[in-house]
């Protein structure tokens, strides 16, 4: 393609942020190591050179203060983007997130807006242990008052970031480390895709069918989408035509697209790197069951992270993480029933 310009997710996030900062003086970024370092995952790289240290603001390691501060700044008319370096760290600042950021619009009857983006990394697979590898999608999606975004590729990452910054509500923007395009994190090549230079938005709550198929619906977000696409290839070798749905946003959740796909294929596998119980997998399956259980021709399956902390040792962690083979096996299990 003549005009093809491939970006990593990290670069596309930085580009969206820069473009929004140029068009709106109220947008600024703060967090740990987001200035000169450009963010541990590269998603603020180059911004301090253009915008300076007032608008690209390194913070002390004190998440309670700076995420709380983002809430106050947002209520006062600014549009902060704040980075929580690892989603696992939410434990030290959760009150600022779910009691302040997520509830102050409601408590004020909508008279205060809280236009902030909390961006945070998730994901394991590189032996960083159980306090630095979780994804925790379900935690944030479960608690009301924050929109939850999770891109699987650079094109979506840019458009969803632009939408997130322009939204007058708090948005939790969750990016998967393995998709960032940082070599040291074992990058998934499929996430680095053509990304237009001009500004564009992607609406929240619109899932994308990334591969059409007729035999089984595989639903995922983030890295799960790539696992789903790889599984679809393996299934194709067995003559099974899988459809892969990228949810893109968890709040709002595009239940219609998922339901219509399952209605077409009759089979459902949900992939999630988050803990299995009480999470996204159960939510998606419940959506189908509540709406019309007869859409399902077999019991739905889930390929999720087991309900254990994330182990350090490589063989144990790999055993626990979702992968394409597990999805293929889930399909086989479904057909055996």
């Amino acid at each position, binding site marked *: 393609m003549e005009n093809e310009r491939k970006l990593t997710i990290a670069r596309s996030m930085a580009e969206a942020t820069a473009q929004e900062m140029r068009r709106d003086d109220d947008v600024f970024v703060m967090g740990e190591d987001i200035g000169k370092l450009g963010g541990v995952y590269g998603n603020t790289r180059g911004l301090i050179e253009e915008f300076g240290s007032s608008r690209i603001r390194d913070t*002390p390691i004190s998440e309670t203060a700076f995420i*709380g*501060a983002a*809430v*106050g700044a947002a209520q006062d*008319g600014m549009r902060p983007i704040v980075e929580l370096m690892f989603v696992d760290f939410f434990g030290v600042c959760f009150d600022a997130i779910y009691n302040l950021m997520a509830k102050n619009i*409601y*408590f004020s009857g909508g008279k205060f807006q809280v236009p902030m983006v909390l961006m945070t990394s998730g994901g394991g697979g590189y032996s960083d242990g159980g306090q630095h590898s979780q994804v925790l999608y379900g935690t944030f999606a479960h608690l009301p008052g924050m929109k939850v975004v999770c891109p699987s590729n650079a094109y979506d990452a840019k458009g969803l970031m632009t939408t997130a910054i322009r939204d007058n509500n708090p948005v939790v923007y969750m990016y998967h480390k393995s998709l960032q395009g940082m070599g040291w994190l074992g990058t998934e090549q499929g996430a680095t895709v053509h990304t237009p230079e001009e500004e564009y938005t992607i609406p929240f709550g619109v899932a994308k069918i990334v591969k059409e198929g007729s035999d089984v619906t595989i639903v995922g977000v983030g890295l799960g989408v790539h696992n789903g696409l790889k599984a679809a290839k393996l299934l194709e070798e067995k003559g099974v035509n899988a459809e892969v749905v990228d949810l893109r946003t968890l709040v709002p959740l595009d239940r219609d697209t998922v339901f219509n796909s399952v209605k077409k294929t009759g089979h459902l596998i949900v992939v999630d790197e988050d803990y299995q119980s009480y999470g996204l997998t159960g939510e998606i399956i419940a959506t189908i069951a509540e709406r019309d259980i007869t859409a399902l021709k077999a019991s739905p399956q889930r390929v999720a992270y087991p309900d254990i902390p994330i182990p350090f040792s490589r063989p144990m962690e790999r055993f626990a993480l979702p992968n394409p083979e597990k999805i293929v096996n889930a399909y086989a299990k479904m057909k055996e029933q």
Partner: protein
Amino acid sequence: MLPTSEKKKWMYENMLVSRFFEEAMEAIYMEGKTPVFNMAEGPIPGEMHLSTGQEPCAVGVCAHLRPSDVVTATHRPHHQAIAKGVDLKMMAAEIFGKKTGLSGGRGGHMHIFDADVNFACSGIIAQGLGPAVGAALSKQMKGDDSVAVAFLGEGAVNQGAFHEALNLAAVWKLPVIFVVEDNSWGISVSKAESTAVKHNAVRAQAYNMPGRFIADNDPIALYDVAGIAIEDARAGKGPTLIEVETTRLAGHFMGDAEGYRPDGELDLLKSKDPIIRMKKLLIDEGVLSEDENLQITLKAQKLVDEAIEFARSSDYPEPAEALEKVFV
């Protein structure tokens, strides 16, 4: 920085409004809750934290504030809200859970939000500090000389959020004032049993900011110190920590039997009622005549009566309105 006679009268009047409001809350709160106390019953359900006795802390600071200045308050927010100019009728209606309340009944007594005067709350100890720091950051970045004030109780100084917020405010030289209302009780645990230092104002040293201690619930001394702190903040000189020694004349919440109070403490505190002292001060100084006092008292009572009447006569929200305003 001493208050003018007009400011003194403003402070006194707002203390009265606050006191009358709390007296009304106290009486109405018990409606329907006797003989068996049930928190869910009556026209005002839920917890109720009265600020009776702490009025000087709010008026001494808020006398300097403009509507554009931001205040974040605590779970005991009524005196702070009144002094900041939160709409009294809508606040009363909010506490009653009425449709006409500040948030249409979604917040309640611990979550008073008024965007018109930049007032916000948190019911969680010390968690209003981060948002105040952020509001101050916003003012600084916009080049606006407005300030933010975070009110907190002395129990909040032992929370991580307090230390993180002070550090952030100091390192960025933000226009924010932290006001510790030290009523010496964290629910039932005394300050002496929970806090390693006698005066929290000294903690300011750890964050390289001025720390000021106001003894004896003194609104005039607080006005002076807060005025300097706010002037400094507006001039870009950074944050100040102010600690006010105050008195909680009620329990932690309504229904608190206060069995933990030493014998005689409450009587001693009541003998130092700040409203009575303020009135005496103004009369002795010749700022206030007995006749003016009557006028101000009647006016304050009328404001409260009208607010309560507004709240009582307002409709409850439609139940399904609960589903609205999660997002804007």
